[in-house]
């Protein structure tokens, strides 16, 4: 069984540029999560989807961050415009029963 796939693995952009991350969850997993992880810290939830509905986006900075999961399968997280403080690892995870989460390898974003 394939795991959670994320791309790209690494991204370097100039500040004020847009950036997008893509996630393909494990087949059959209805719940999808996007997290942000800073060095030495635990993951912080940005948004959680149940199928195509965003059920918890309270921590998503909506002025510059957006996400979509149009067909309830893969998802895209976008930042526009990126700021220096957005440099971090962006993790995607999925689950089928809402408890145990399966994480992807993450996208390491560097904003210069």
């Amino acid at each position: 069984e394939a795991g959670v796939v994320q791309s790209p693995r690494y991204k370097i952009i100039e500040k004020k540029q847009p950036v997008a991350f893509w996630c393909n969850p494990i087949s059959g997993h209805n719940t999808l999560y996007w997290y942000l992880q800073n060095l030495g810290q635990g993951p912080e939830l940005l948004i959680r989807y149940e199928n195509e509905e965003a059920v918890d986006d309270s921590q998503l900075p909506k002025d510059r961050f957006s996400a979509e999961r149009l067909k309830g399968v893969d998802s895209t997280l976008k930042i526009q415009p990126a700021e220096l403080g957005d440099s971090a690892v962006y993790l995607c995870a999925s689950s089928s029963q809402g408890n145990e989460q399966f994480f992807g390898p993450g996208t390491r974003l560097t904003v210069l």
Partner: protein
Amino acid sequence: SQKIEQNSEALNIQEGKTATLTCNYTNYSPAYLQWYRQDPGRGPVFLLLIRENEKEKRKERLKVTFDTTLKQSLFHITASQPADSATYLCSSGGYNKLIFGAGTRLAVHP
């Protein structure tokens, strides 16, 4: 605010000993706690889940406890091996938003 605290100092132990990691939560009562392992450059990997009505859970060399009075979970690795060296994350969920602790780095020395 709701928070999970883990010991930020690395835990160094000798191979074969038992490693014990602590997770404390404040200002809420999670329905369950989970423990994940994270290696450098990789996403977290699920290890164990314990619910609020369970005192203890075991899986091979791993044991986790949940004390709702102390608001604490302990994570034990018995007969530790150098391959167990990693960062271990505690997280909570259920009635509240999903929260992760900052993790504790474990180093097992031969």
